[in-house]
Protein backbone atom coordinates (compact mmCIF):
# COMPACT_ATOMS: atom_id res chain seq x y z
CA UNK A 1 0.00 0.00 0.00
CA UNK A 2 2.77 2.37 0.94
CA UNK A 3 4.39 1.66 -2.36
CA UNK A 4 1.24 2.64 -4.27
CA UNK A 5 1.25 5.84 -2.28
CA UNK A 6 4.84 6.44 -3.27
CA UNK A 7 4.03 5.86 -6.91
CA UNK A 8 1.05 8.19 -6.82
CA UNK A 9 3.04 10.78 -4.93
CA UNK A 10 5.81 10.64 -7.51
CA UNK A 11 3.32 10.96 -10.30
CA UNK A 12 1.78 14.02 -8.69
CA UNK A 13 5.20 15.52 -8.02
CA UNK A 14 6.33 14.90 -11.54
CA UNK A 15 3.12 16.31 -12.94
CA UNK A 16 3.57 19.44 -10.89
CA UNK A 17 7.08 19.93 -12.18
CA UNK A 18 6.60 18.71 -15.70
CA UNK A 19 3.89 21.00 -16.88
CA UNK A 20 6.03 22.30 -19.69
CA UNK A 21 6.63 18.95 -21.37
CA UNK A 22 4.99 17.54 -24.42
CA UNK A 23 4.59 18.44 -28.07
CA UNK A 24 8.12 18.18 -29.36
CA UNK A 25 9.07 19.39 -32.78
CA UNK A 26 11.38 17.35 -34.98
CA UNK A 27 14.47 18.75 -36.60
CA UNK A 28 13.67 21.12 -39.40
CA UNK A 29 11.82 24.39 -39.56
CA UNK A 30 11.62 26.25 -36.25
CA UNK A 31 8.43 25.65 -34.29
CA UNK A 32 6.16 28.59 -33.96
CA UNK A 33 7.45 31.09 -31.45
CA UNK A 34 11.10 30.66 -32.27
CA UNK A 35 13.58 27.85 -32.60
CA UNK A 36 14.43 25.49 -29.77
CA UNK A 37 18.10 25.53 -28.92
CA UNK A 38 19.47 22.87 -26.60
CA UNK A 39 22.66 24.03 -24.91
CA UNK A 40 24.97 21.81 -22.92
CA UNK A 41 27.97 22.66 -20.76
CA UNK A 42 30.71 20.24 -19.86
CA UNK A 43 29.51 20.19 -16.30
CA UNK A 44 26.51 21.95 -14.78
CA UNK A 45 28.04 22.57 -11.38
CA UNK A 46 30.85 24.83 -12.54
CA UNK A 47 30.43 28.63 -12.11
CA UNK A 48 32.25 29.12 -15.41
CA UNK A 49 29.35 27.48 -17.21
CA UNK A 50 26.77 29.18 -15.04
CA UNK A 51 27.89 32.50 -16.48
CA UNK A 52 27.79 31.08 -20.03
CA UNK A 53 24.21 30.08 -19.29
CA UNK A 54 23.35 33.60 -18.20
CA UNK A 55 24.69 35.05 -21.42
CA UNK A 56 22.93 32.41 -23.45
CA UNK A 57 19.62 33.09 -21.73
CA UNK A 58 20.04 36.82 -22.38
CA UNK A 59 20.39 36.18 -26.10
CA UNK A 60 17.52 33.69 -26.06
CA UNK A 61 15.19 36.23 -24.49
CA UNK A 62 16.18 38.89 -27.00
CA UNK A 63 15.82 36.61 -30.02
CA UNK A 64 12.69 34.71 -29.03
CA UNK A 65 14.55 31.42 -28.73
CA UNK A 66 13.42 28.61 -26.43
CA UNK A 67 16.59 27.64 -24.59
CA UNK A 68 17.05 24.23 -23.03
CA UNK A 69 19.98 23.92 -20.66
CA UNK A 70 21.09 20.56 -19.41
CA UNK A 71 24.18 18.48 -19.02
CA UNK A 72 26.16 16.19 -16.79
CA UNK A 73 26.36 17.05 -13.12
CA UNK A 74 29.48 14.96 -12.77
CA UNK A 75 32.33 14.78 -15.24
CA UNK A 76 31.19 11.41 -16.53
CA UNK A 77 32.53 11.18 -20.07
CA UNK A 78 29.55 9.18 -21.25
CA UNK A 79 26.81 11.41 -19.92
CA UNK A 80 27.04 14.05 -22.62
CA UNK A 81 26.20 11.43 -25.24
CA UNK A 82 23.08 10.41 -23.40
CA UNK A 83 21.83 13.96 -23.13
CA UNK A 84 22.34 14.54 -26.86
CA UNK A 85 20.51 11.30 -27.62
CA UNK A 86 17.58 12.47 -25.54
CA UNK A 87 17.51 15.78 -27.38
CA UNK A 88 17.52 14.01 -30.73
CA UNK A 89 14.57 11.97 -29.55
CA UNK A 90 12.79 14.98 -28.14
CA UNK A 91 13.35 16.95 -31.28
CA UNK A 92 15.15 20.28 -31.14
CA UNK A 93 16.28 22.68 -33.82
CA UNK A 94 19.85 23.25 -32.72
CA UNK A 95 22.15 21.45 -30.34
CA UNK A 96 25.00 23.50 -28.87
CA UNK A 97 27.62 21.55 -26.92
CA UNK A 98 30.75 22.39 -25.01
CA UNK A 99 32.55 19.16 -25.71
CA UNK A 100 34.17 17.12 -22.98
CA UNK A 101 35.29 14.19 -25.14
CA UNK A 102 35.84 14.96 -28.79
CA UNK A 103 35.84 11.42 -30.19
CA UNK A 104 33.00 10.12 -28.08
CA UNK A 105 30.56 12.92 -28.77
CA UNK A 106 31.20 13.19 -32.49
CA UNK A 107 29.36 9.95 -33.20
CA UNK A 108 26.15 11.14 -31.68
CA UNK A 109 26.47 14.67 -33.10
CA UNK A 110 26.78 13.26 -36.61
CA UNK A 111 23.60 11.36 -35.95
CA UNK A 112 21.89 14.60 -34.95
CA UNK A 113 23.01 16.30 -38.14
CA UNK A 114 21.75 13.37 -40.17
CA UNK A 115 18.34 14.01 -38.68
CA UNK A 116 18.38 17.64 -39.76
CA UNK A 117 19.32 19.10 -36.40
CA UNK A 118 21.90 21.87 -36.60
CA UNK A 119 24.95 21.39 -34.41
CA UNK A 120 27.10 24.09 -32.87
CA UNK A 121 30.09 23.45 -30.67
CA UNK A 122 31.29 26.12 -28.29
CA UNK A 123 34.13 26.44 -25.82
CA UNK A 124 35.59 23.08 -26.93
CA UNK A 125 35.25 21.50 -30.35
CA UNK A 126 34.18 18.13 -31.71
CA UNK A 127 35.40 16.57 -34.95
CA UNK A 128 34.95 18.86 -37.93
CA UNK A 129 32.31 16.84 -39.73
CA UNK A 130 30.23 16.42 -36.60
CA UNK A 131 29.16 20.06 -36.34
CA UNK A 132 28.04 22.96 -38.50
CA UNK A 133 29.86 25.72 -36.69
CA UNK A 134 32.41 26.03 -33.91
CA UNK A 135 32.12 29.10 -31.70
CA UNK A 136 35.62 29.59 -30.46
CA UNK A 137 36.94 31.84 -27.78
CA UNK A 138 40.54 30.77 -27.85
CA UNK A 139 42.55 27.97 -29.39
CA UNK A 140 44.54 25.63 -27.11
CA UNK A 141 47.69 27.04 -28.72
CA UNK A 142 46.57 30.56 -27.96
CA UNK A 143 45.77 29.76 -24.35
CA UNK A 144 49.08 27.99 -23.84
CA UNK A 145 50.87 30.90 -25.41
CA UNK A 146 49.33 33.55 -23.18
CA UNK A 147 49.88 31.47 -20.04
CA UNK A 148 53.53 30.92 -20.91
CA UNK A 149 54.00 34.60 -21.71
CA UNK A 150 52.80 35.53 -18.23
CA UNK A 151 54.90 32.80 -16.62
CA UNK A 152 57.99 33.82 -18.50
CA UNK A 153 57.50 37.45 -17.57
CA UNK A 154 57.08 36.58 -13.89
CA UNK A 155 60.20 34.41 -13.93
CA UNK A 156 62.25 36.95 -15.79
CA UNK A 157 62.66 34.55 -18.70
CA UNK A 158 64.34 31.81 -16.67
CA UNK A 159 63.26 29.55 -13.82
CA UNK A 160 60.96 26.80 -12.58
CA UNK A 161 57.21 26.63 -12.44
CA UNK A 162 54.54 24.04 -11.64
CA UNK A 163 51.03 23.42 -12.90
CA UNK A 164 47.92 22.70 -10.90
CA UNK A 165 45.41 21.14 -13.28
CA UNK A 166 41.78 19.97 -12.97
CA UNK A 167 41.61 16.17 -12.91
CA UNK A 168 44.32 14.07 -14.53
CA UNK A 169 41.92 12.95 -17.23
CA UNK A 170 40.33 16.34 -18.03
CA UNK A 171 40.46 16.62 -21.81
CA UNK A 172 40.71 20.42 -22.16
CA UNK A 173 43.44 20.82 -19.57
CA UNK A 174 45.39 17.95 -21.11
CA UNK A 175 45.17 19.67 -24.48
CA UNK A 176 46.55 22.89 -22.98
CA UNK A 177 49.32 20.99 -21.19
CA UNK A 178 50.29 19.31 -24.43
CA UNK A 179 50.58 22.71 -26.11
CA UNK A 180 52.46 24.15 -23.15
CA UNK A 181 55.02 21.36 -23.37
CA UNK A 182 55.43 21.91 -27.11
CA UNK A 183 55.89 25.64 -26.76
CA UNK A 184 58.27 25.23 -23.85
CA UNK A 185 60.53 23.12 -26.02
CA UNK A 186 60.25 25.46 -28.99
CA UNK A 187 60.19 28.95 -27.50
CA UNK A 188 61.13 28.87 -23.80
CA UNK A 189 64.16 26.65 -23.28
CA UNK A 190 65.06 28.39 -20.04
CA UNK A 191 61.75 27.65 -18.35
CA UNK A 192 61.36 24.37 -16.50
CA UNK A 193 58.06 22.66 -15.75
CA UNK A 194 58.73 20.85 -12.51
CA UNK A 195 55.51 19.01 -11.75
CA UNK A 196 51.82 18.74 -12.57
CA UNK A 197 49.39 18.08 -9.69
CA UNK A 198 45.63 17.49 -9.95
CA UNK A 199 43.00 19.44 -8.05
CA UNK A 200 40.01 17.36 -9.16
CA UNK A 201 38.15 20.70 -9.40
CA UNK A 202 38.29 20.97 -5.62
CA UNK A 203 39.63 24.20 -4.17
CA UNK A 204 40.87 22.54 -0.98
CA UNK A 205 42.76 19.92 -2.96
CA UNK A 206 44.43 22.63 -5.05
CA UNK A 207 45.34 24.37 -1.79
CA UNK A 208 46.85 21.21 -0.26
CA UNK A 209 48.80 20.29 -3.40
CA UNK A 210 50.22 23.80 -3.73
CA UNK A 211 51.25 23.85 -0.07
CA UNK A 212 53.15 20.60 -0.50
CA UNK A 213 54.61 21.67 -3.82
CA UNK A 214 56.11 24.83 -2.32
CA UNK A 215 58.02 22.72 0.17
CA UNK A 216 59.06 19.88 -2.08
CA UNK A 217 60.26 22.26 -4.78
CA UNK A 218 61.39 25.50 -3.15
CA UNK A 219 62.88 26.57 -6.47
CA UNK A 220 59.43 26.94 -8.03
CA UNK A 221 58.54 30.60 -8.27
CA UNK A 222 55.37 30.48 -10.36
CA UNK A 223 52.30 28.34 -9.93
CA UNK A 224 50.16 28.06 -13.03
CA UNK A 225 46.62 27.04 -12.00
CA UNK A 226 44.59 25.99 -15.03
CA UNK A 227 41.21 25.17 -13.53
CA UNK A 228 38.82 27.72 -12.05
CA UNK A 229 38.65 26.28 -8.50
CA UNK A 230 42.40 25.80 -8.54
CA UNK A 231 43.21 29.50 -8.93
CA UNK A 232 41.89 30.68 -5.55
CA UNK A 233 43.12 27.45 -3.94
CA UNK A 234 46.68 27.89 -5.16
CA UNK A 235 46.67 31.62 -4.45
CA UNK A 236 45.47 31.11 -0.88
CA UNK A 237 48.20 28.51 -0.31
CA UNK A 238 50.89 30.84 -1.56
CA UNK A 239 49.50 33.70 0.52
CA UNK A 240 49.40 31.60 3.70
CA UNK A 241 52.90 30.33 3.15
CA UNK A 242 54.27 33.85 3.29
CA UNK A 243 56.39 33.15 0.21
CA UNK A 244 56.36 36.59 -1.37
CA UNK A 245 58.80 35.36 -4.00
CA UNK A 246 56.16 33.07 -5.51
CA UNK A 247 53.42 34.30 -7.82
CA UNK A 248 50.36 32.64 -9.27
CA UNK A 249 48.91 32.87 -12.75
CA UNK A 250 46.37 30.77 -14.56
CA UNK A 251 42.92 30.37 -15.98
CA UNK A 252 39.95 31.23 -13.82
CA UNK A 253 36.99 33.42 -13.04
CA UNK A 254 37.29 37.09 -12.06
CA UNK A 255 35.09 37.11 -8.95
CA UNK A 256 36.93 34.28 -7.21
CA UNK A 257 40.25 35.76 -8.28
CA UNK A 258 39.58 39.37 -7.32
CA UNK A 259 40.85 39.36 -3.71
CA UNK A 260 44.07 37.63 -4.73
CA UNK A 261 44.64 39.92 -7.69
CA UNK A 262 44.21 42.90 -5.40
CA UNK A 263 46.76 41.79 -2.88
CA UNK A 264 49.28 40.80 -5.50
CA UNK A 265 49.66 37.06 -4.89
CA UNK A 266 47.77 36.37 -8.09
CA UNK A 267 49.37 38.20 -10.94
CA UNK A 268 47.09 37.55 -13.86
CA UNK A 269 44.11 35.44 -14.80
CA UNK A 270 43.52 34.47 -18.40
CA UNK A 271 39.99 33.99 -19.61
CA UNK A 272 37.45 35.51 -21.91
CA UNK A 273 34.04 36.93 -21.26
CA UNK A 274 32.08 33.77 -20.62
CA UNK A 275 28.76 35.55 -20.66
CA UNK A 276 29.56 36.86 -24.12
CA UNK A 277 30.52 33.35 -25.16
CA UNK A 278 27.12 32.04 -24.16
CA UNK A 279 25.42 35.01 -25.78
CA UNK A 280 27.30 34.52 -29.03
CA UNK A 281 26.61 30.78 -29.07
CA UNK A 282 22.86 31.27 -28.85
CA UNK A 283 23.03 34.02 -31.48
CA UNK A 284 24.82 31.65 -33.82
CA UNK A 285 22.38 28.85 -33.07
CA UNK A 286 19.46 31.16 -33.77
CA UNK A 287 20.96 32.32 -37.05
CA UNK A 288 21.62 28.74 -38.12
CA UNK A 289 18.08 27.70 -37.33
CA UNK A 290 16.59 30.60 -39.24
CA UNK A 291 19.07 30.34 -42.10
CA UNK A 292 20.40 33.86 -41.59
CA UNK A 293 24.04 32.93 -41.06
CA UNK A 294 26.20 34.25 -43.89
CA UNK A 295 29.84 33.72 -44.72
CA UNK A 296 32.65 36.21 -44.49
CA UNK A 297 33.11 39.47 -42.76
CA UNK A 298 30.16 40.53 -40.65
CA UNK A 299 28.30 37.39 -41.60
CA UNK A 300 26.58 37.22 -38.25
CA UNK A 301 24.69 39.99 -36.57
CA UNK A 302 25.42 39.17 -32.96
CA UNK A 303 23.15 41.66 -31.26
CA UNK A 304 25.01 43.63 -28.63
CA UNK A 305 28.31 42.10 -29.68
CA UNK A 306 28.00 43.69 -33.07
CA UNK A 307 28.80 42.00 -36.38
CA UNK A 308 31.02 38.94 -36.19
CA UNK A 309 33.09 37.41 -38.97
CA UNK A 310 32.18 33.92 -40.12
CA UNK A 311 35.25 32.11 -41.38
CA UNK A 312 33.90 28.92 -42.96
CA UNK A 313 32.70 26.93 -39.97
CA UNK A 314 34.59 28.92 -37.39
CA UNK A 315 33.49 31.96 -35.43
CA UNK A 316 35.80 33.53 -32.91
CA UNK A 317 34.64 35.52 -29.92
CA UNK A 318 37.87 37.42 -29.62
CA UNK A 319 41.27 36.78 -28.14
CA UNK A 320 41.94 35.52 -24.63
CA UNK A 321 41.61 38.26 -22.11
CA UNK A 322 43.81 38.75 -19.09
CA UNK A 323 42.26 39.93 -15.86
CA UNK A 324 44.60 41.96 -13.69
CA UNK A 325 44.34 43.94 -10.52
CA UNK A 326 43.53 47.02 -12.58
CA UNK A 327 40.66 45.76 -14.70
CA UNK A 328 39.01 43.01 -12.66
CA UNK A 329 36.48 45.33 -11.03
CA UNK A 330 34.75 45.78 -14.33
CA UNK A 331 33.49 42.21 -14.38
CA UNK A 332 30.99 40.27 -12.34
CA UNK A 333 31.04 36.53 -12.89
Amino acid at each position, binding site marked *: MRRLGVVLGLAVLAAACGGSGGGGAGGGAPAKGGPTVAMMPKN*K*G*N*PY*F*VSCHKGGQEAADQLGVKLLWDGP*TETDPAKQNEVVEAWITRGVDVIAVSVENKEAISTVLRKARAKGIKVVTWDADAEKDARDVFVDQATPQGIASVLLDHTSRLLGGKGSFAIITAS*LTAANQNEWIKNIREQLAAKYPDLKLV*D*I*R*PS*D*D*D*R*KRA*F*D*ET*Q*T*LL*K*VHPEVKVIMAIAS*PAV*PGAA*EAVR*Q*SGRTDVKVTGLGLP*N*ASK*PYLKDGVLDSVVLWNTMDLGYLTVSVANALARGTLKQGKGGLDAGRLGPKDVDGDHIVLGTPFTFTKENVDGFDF
Partner: protein
Amino acid sequence: MTPAAGRYRRELGVAGALVLLLGLLTVIAPAFFGAANLRDLLVANAPVLVAAVGMTLVILARQIDISIGSQFAICGVAAGLLAKTGLPMPLVAAGAVAAGAALGAINGALVAGLGLPAIVVTLATMVVLREGLRWRTEGVWIQDLPERFQWFGLGQAGGRVAIVAAAIVVFAAFAWGLRRLAAGRAVYAAGSDPEAARLVGIHPRRVVFATFVFMGALTGLAAVLTAIQFIDVQTSAGTGLEMKVIAAVVVGGVAISGGRGTLVGTLLGVTLLGTIGPALTFLGTQAYWERALQGAVILLAVSTDALPSLVRRRRGRA
Protein backbone atom coordinates in the same frame (compact mmCIF):
# COMPACT_ATOMS: atom_id res chain seq x y z
CA MET B 1 52.24 -11.78 22.63
CA THR B 2 50.79 -10.18 25.73
CA PRO B 3 47.00 -9.91 25.88
CA ALA B 4 47.17 -6.15 25.45
CA ALA B 5 49.35 -6.43 22.38
CA GLY B 6 46.97 -9.02 20.95
CA ARG B 7 43.99 -6.77 21.45
CA TYR B 8 45.71 -3.87 19.75
CA ARG B 9 47.25 -5.94 16.99
CA ARG B 10 45.76 -3.91 14.17
CA GLU B 11 46.66 -0.59 15.75
CA LEU B 12 50.23 -1.80 16.19
CA GLY B 13 50.27 -2.90 12.58
CA VAL B 14 49.19 0.50 11.33
CA ALA B 15 51.63 2.22 13.66
CA GLY B 16 54.31 -0.03 12.21
CA ALA B 17 53.39 0.94 8.66
CA LEU B 18 53.47 4.60 9.63
CA VAL B 19 56.90 4.23 11.20
CA LEU B 20 58.11 2.53 8.03
CA LEU B 21 56.81 5.35 5.84
CA LEU B 22 58.34 8.01 8.06
CA GLY B 23 61.61 6.07 8.08
CA LEU B 24 61.63 6.06 4.29
CA LEU B 25 61.08 9.79 4.29
CA THR B 26 63.87 10.38 6.79
CA VAL B 27 66.30 8.71 4.44
CA ILE B 28 65.09 9.94 1.06
CA ALA B 29 63.31 13.22 1.72
CA PRO B 30 64.07 14.62 5.16
CA ALA B 31 62.59 17.95 4.06
CA PHE B 32 59.24 16.36 4.91
CA PHE B 33 59.95 16.94 8.58
CA GLY B 34 60.27 20.69 8.26
CA ALA B 35 58.19 22.51 10.87
CA ALA B 36 56.05 24.29 8.29
CA ASN B 37 55.16 21.06 6.53
CA LEU B 38 54.23 19.22 9.71
CA ARG B 39 52.13 22.13 10.84
CA ASP B 40 50.32 22.33 7.51
CA LEU B 41 49.62 18.60 7.55
CA LEU B 42 48.16 18.88 11.05
CA VAL B 43 45.84 21.67 9.99
CA ALA B 44 44.84 19.91 6.78
CA ASN B 45 43.97 16.64 8.52
CA ALA B 46 42.27 18.07 11.60
CA PRO B 47 38.85 18.22 9.89
CA VAL B 48 39.31 14.68 8.56
CA LEU B 49 39.99 13.45 12.09
CA VAL B 50 36.88 15.15 13.40
CA ALA B 51 34.74 13.46 10.75
CA ALA B 52 36.51 10.16 11.36
CA VAL B 53 35.57 10.30 15.05
CA GLY B 54 31.94 10.45 14.01
CA MET B 55 32.36 7.65 11.50
CA THR B 56 34.01 5.51 14.19
CA LEU B 57 30.90 5.81 16.33
CA VAL B 58 28.68 4.89 13.41
CA ILE B 59 30.72 1.87 12.38
CA LEU B 60 31.11 0.70 15.97
CA ALA B 61 27.32 0.63 16.11
CA ARG B 62 27.41 -1.64 13.08
CA GLN B 63 26.15 1.04 10.71
CA ILE B 64 27.74 3.13 7.98
CA ASP B 65 27.23 6.59 6.54
CA ILE B 66 28.25 7.32 2.97
CA SER B 67 26.43 10.63 2.81
CA ILE B 68 28.92 12.72 4.78
CA GLY B 69 30.40 14.29 1.68
CA SER B 70 27.07 15.86 0.81
CA GLN B 71 26.47 16.83 4.44
CA PHE B 72 29.88 18.50 4.45
CA ALA B 73 29.00 20.60 1.43
CA ILE B 74 25.67 21.71 2.87
CA CYS B 75 27.16 22.60 6.26
CA GLY B 76 29.88 24.64 4.56
CA VAL B 77 27.23 26.53 2.63
CA ALA B 78 25.25 27.02 5.85
CA ALA B 79 28.32 28.50 7.52
CA GLY B 80 28.88 30.88 4.64
CA LEU B 81 25.28 32.03 4.47
CA LEU B 82 25.05 32.49 8.23
CA ALA B 83 28.24 34.53 8.23
CA LYS B 84 26.83 36.79 5.54
CA THR B 85 23.85 37.63 7.74
CA GLY B 86 26.25 39.19 10.22
CA LEU B 87 26.10 36.63 12.99
CA PRO B 88 29.21 36.37 15.18
CA MET B 89 31.44 33.45 14.26
CA PRO B 90 30.72 31.23 17.28
CA LEU B 91 27.04 31.28 16.33
CA VAL B 92 27.93 30.64 12.71
CA ALA B 93 29.88 27.55 13.74
CA ALA B 94 27.08 26.41 16.03
CA GLY B 95 24.60 26.86 13.19
CA ALA B 96 26.64 24.75 10.81
CA VAL B 97 27.04 22.03 13.42
CA ALA B 98 23.31 22.11 14.08
CA ALA B 99 22.63 21.80 10.36
CA GLY B 100 24.86 18.74 10.29
CA ALA B 101 23.09 17.27 13.28
CA ALA B 102 19.74 17.78 11.56
CA LEU B 103 20.95 16.00 8.43
CA GLY B 104 22.30 13.21 10.60
CA ALA B 105 18.96 12.98 12.34
CA ILE B 106 17.29 12.30 8.98
CA ASN B 107 19.61 9.38 8.41
CA GLY B 108 19.11 8.26 11.98
CA ALA B 109 15.35 8.38 11.72
CA LEU B 110 15.32 6.26 8.59
CA VAL B 111 17.82 3.73 9.91
CA ALA B 112 16.88 3.48 13.57
CA GLY B 113 13.26 4.53 13.34
CA LEU B 114 12.19 2.65 10.23
CA GLY B 115 14.80 -0.08 10.44
CA LEU B 116 16.12 0.50 6.93
CA PRO B 117 19.66 -0.62 6.02
CA ALA B 118 22.18 2.16 6.62
CA ILE B 119 24.18 1.75 3.45
CA VAL B 120 21.15 2.12 1.23
CA VAL B 121 19.62 4.96 3.24
CA THR B 122 22.82 6.95 3.20
CA LEU B 123 23.33 6.21 -0.49
CA ALA B 124 19.94 7.74 -1.13
CA THR B 125 20.49 10.76 1.13
CA MET B 126 23.93 11.30 -0.39
CA VAL B 127 22.41 11.63 -3.85
CA VAL B 128 19.37 13.65 -2.80
CA LEU B 129 21.42 16.14 -0.76
CA ARG B 130 24.13 16.59 -3.34
CA GLU B 131 21.80 17.00 -6.29
CA GLY B 132 19.49 19.23 -4.29
CA LEU B 133 22.35 21.50 -3.27
CA ARG B 134 23.69 21.70 -6.79
CA TRP B 135 20.26 22.50 -8.18
CA ARG B 136 19.85 25.31 -5.70
CA THR B 137 23.30 26.83 -5.95
CA GLU B 138 24.23 25.94 -9.55
CA GLY B 139 27.77 25.58 -8.34
CA VAL B 140 28.17 29.27 -7.55
CA TRP B 141 30.48 29.87 -4.60
CA ILE B 142 29.46 31.87 -1.55
CA GLN B 143 31.60 34.97 -1.77
CA ASP B 144 32.02 38.39 -0.18
CA LEU B 145 32.11 36.99 3.33
CA PRO B 146 32.94 39.25 6.25
CA GLU B 147 36.61 39.48 7.13
CA ARG B 148 36.25 37.67 10.41
CA PHE B 149 35.13 34.54 8.58
CA GLN B 150 38.65 33.46 7.78
CA TRP B 151 40.38 31.98 10.80
CA PHE B 152 37.41 32.93 13.02
CA GLY B 153 38.93 36.40 12.92
CA LEU B 154 41.87 35.12 14.97
CA GLY B 155 44.46 35.65 12.30
CA GLN B 156 46.40 32.93 10.53
CA ALA B 157 48.48 31.65 13.45
CA GLY B 158 45.65 31.83 15.94
CA GLY B 159 43.21 30.23 13.57
CA ARG B 160 45.51 27.29 12.90
CA VAL B 161 45.91 26.68 16.60
CA ALA B 162 42.15 26.84 17.00
CA ILE B 163 41.57 24.26 14.28
CA VAL B 164 44.06 21.76 15.63
CA ALA B 165 42.92 22.38 19.19
CA ALA B 166 39.31 21.77 18.20
CA ALA B 167 40.25 18.44 16.65
CA ILE B 168 42.27 17.42 19.69
CA VAL B 169 39.46 18.36 22.07
CA VAL B 170 36.89 16.42 20.03
CA PHE B 171 39.15 13.40 19.81
CA ALA B 172 40.00 13.39 23.50
CA ALA B 173 36.43 13.93 24.58
CA PHE B 174 35.05 11.10 22.47
CA ALA B 175 37.93 8.78 23.30
CA TRP B 176 37.29 9.35 26.98
CA GLY B 177 33.52 9.07 26.55
CA LEU B 178 33.68 5.81 24.63
CA ARG B 179 35.78 4.29 27.36
CA ARG B 180 34.41 5.74 30.54
CA LEU B 181 30.80 6.69 29.96
CA ALA B 182 27.96 4.20 29.98
CA ALA B 183 26.79 5.80 26.77
CA GLY B 184 30.11 4.95 25.19
CA ARG B 185 29.93 1.35 26.22
CA ALA B 186 26.37 1.27 24.96
CA VAL B 187 27.69 2.01 21.46
CA TYR B 188 29.99 -1.00 21.62
CA ALA B 189 27.18 -3.14 23.01
CA ALA B 190 24.64 -2.11 20.38
CA GLY B 191 27.17 -2.79 17.66
CA SER B 192 28.34 -6.18 18.79
CA ASP B 193 25.04 -7.71 19.86
CA PRO B 194 21.84 -5.66 19.83
CA GLU B 195 19.74 -8.42 21.40
CA ALA B 196 22.07 -8.84 24.34
CA ALA B 197 22.24 -5.06 24.67
CA ARG B 198 18.46 -4.85 24.84
CA LEU B 199 18.45 -7.45 27.59
CA VAL B 200 20.67 -5.31 29.78
CA GLY B 201 18.52 -2.26 29.31
CA ILE B 202 20.26 -0.51 26.43
CA HIS B 203 18.04 0.75 23.63
CA PRO B 204 19.98 -0.12 20.46
CA ARG B 205 17.77 2.02 18.25
CA ARG B 206 18.32 5.11 20.35
CA VAL B 207 22.04 4.46 20.33
CA VAL B 208 22.06 4.11 16.54
CA PHE B 209 20.02 7.28 16.12
CA ALA B 210 22.43 9.14 18.37
CA THR B 211 25.48 7.97 16.43
CA PHE B 212 24.02 9.33 13.20
CA VAL B 213 23.25 12.65 14.83
CA PHE B 214 26.80 12.86 16.19
CA MET B 215 28.12 11.94 12.75
CA GLY B 216 26.20 14.80 11.22
CA ALA B 217 27.23 17.27 13.89
CA LEU B 218 30.89 16.32 13.61
CA THR B 219 30.70 16.56 9.83
CA GLY B 220 29.31 20.05 10.30
CA LEU B 221 32.23 20.90 12.56
CA ALA B 222 34.67 19.49 10.03
CA ALA B 223 33.03 21.64 7.37
CA VAL B 224 33.46 24.75 9.52
CA LEU B 225 37.09 23.93 10.31
CA THR B 226 37.74 23.61 6.59
CA ALA B 227 35.70 26.60 5.47
CA ILE B 228 37.38 29.05 7.79
CA GLN B 229 40.75 28.40 6.19
CA PHE B 230 39.50 30.29 3.16
CA ILE B 231 37.74 33.52 2.28
CA ASP B 232 34.82 32.00 0.42
CA VAL B 233 32.86 28.75 0.36
CA GLN B 234 32.96 26.29 -2.50
CA THR B 235 29.51 24.80 -2.79
CA SER B 236 30.72 21.55 -4.30
CA ALA B 237 33.20 20.73 -1.54
CA GLY B 238 33.54 17.43 0.22
CA THR B 239 33.38 15.12 -2.79
CA GLY B 240 34.90 11.78 -1.91
CA LEU B 241 35.09 12.59 1.80
CA GLU B 242 33.12 9.50 2.80
CA MET B 243 35.47 7.11 1.04
CA LYS B 244 38.49 8.82 2.57
CA VAL B 245 37.10 8.77 6.10
CA ILE B 246 35.74 5.21 5.95
CA ALA B 247 39.07 3.98 4.61
CA ALA B 248 40.91 5.71 7.46
CA VAL B 249 38.59 4.22 10.08
CA VAL B 250 38.75 0.64 8.81
CA VAL B 251 42.47 0.78 8.21
CA GLY B 252 42.71 1.89 11.82
CA GLY B 253 41.17 -1.35 12.91
CA VAL B 254 37.50 -0.58 13.53
CA ALA B 255 35.63 -3.71 12.49
CA ILE B 256 33.00 -3.17 9.83
CA SER B 257 30.81 -5.74 11.59
CA GLY B 258 30.58 -3.46 14.61
CA GLY B 259 31.50 -3.63 18.25
CA ARG B 260 35.27 -3.64 17.89
CA GLY B 261 37.84 -0.89 17.46
CA THR B 262 39.31 2.18 19.11
CA LEU B 263 39.61 5.87 18.39
CA VAL B 264 43.37 5.52 18.74
CA GLY B 265 43.23 3.20 15.77
CA THR B 266 41.20 5.78 13.87
CA LEU B 267 43.79 8.43 14.69
CA LEU B 268 46.51 6.19 13.30
CA GLY B 269 44.43 5.46 10.21
CA VAL B 270 43.83 9.15 9.54
CA THR B 271 47.52 9.88 10.06
CA LEU B 272 48.69 7.09 7.78
CA LEU B 273 46.30 7.84 4.93
CA GLY B 274 46.79 11.58 5.34
CA THR B 275 50.54 11.21 5.14
CA ILE B 276 50.70 9.04 2.03
CA GLY B 277 49.75 11.77 -0.44
CA PRO B 278 52.28 14.41 0.65
CA ALA B 279 54.87 11.70 1.30
CA LEU B 280 54.60 10.52 -2.28
CA THR B 281 55.07 14.06 -3.53
CA PHE B 282 58.18 14.41 -1.38
CA LEU B 283 59.45 11.07 -2.63
CA GLY B 284 59.07 12.32 -6.20
CA THR B 285 56.27 10.02 -7.32
CA GLN B 286 54.19 11.13 -10.28
CA ALA B 287 50.71 12.32 -9.35
CA TYR B 288 49.02 9.73 -11.55
CA TRP B 289 50.29 6.84 -9.48
CA GLU B 290 49.02 8.21 -6.20
CA ARG B 291 45.56 6.68 -6.26
CA ALA B 292 46.91 3.22 -7.04
CA LEU B 293 49.32 3.44 -4.11
CA GLN B 294 46.57 4.62 -1.75
CA GLY B 295 44.46 1.62 -2.77
CA ALA B 296 47.39 -0.73 -2.32
CA VAL B 297 48.07 0.60 1.17
CA ILE B 298 44.44 0.12 2.17
CA LEU B 299 44.42 -3.44 0.87
CA LEU B 300 47.71 -4.29 2.55
CA ALA B 301 46.56 -2.83 5.84
CA VAL B 302 43.31 -4.78 5.93
CA SER B 303 44.80 -7.99 4.57
CA THR B 304 47.79 -8.39 6.83
CA ASP B 305 45.39 -8.30 9.70
CA ALA B 306 43.58 -11.35 8.37
CA LEU B 307 46.68 -13.40 7.64
CA PRO B 308 47.32 -14.63 11.20
CA SER B 309 43.75 -15.88 11.53
CA LEU B 310 44.04 -17.57 8.15
CA VAL B 311 47.20 -19.35 9.25
CA ARG B 312 45.49 -20.40 12.44
CA ARG B 313 42.51 -21.76 10.54
CA ARG B 314 44.70 -23.77 8.21
CA ARG B 315 46.65 -25.16 11.14
CA GLY B 316 43.44 -26.02 12.93
CA ARG B 317 42.20 -27.99 9.96
CA ALA B 318 45.42 -29.98 9.53
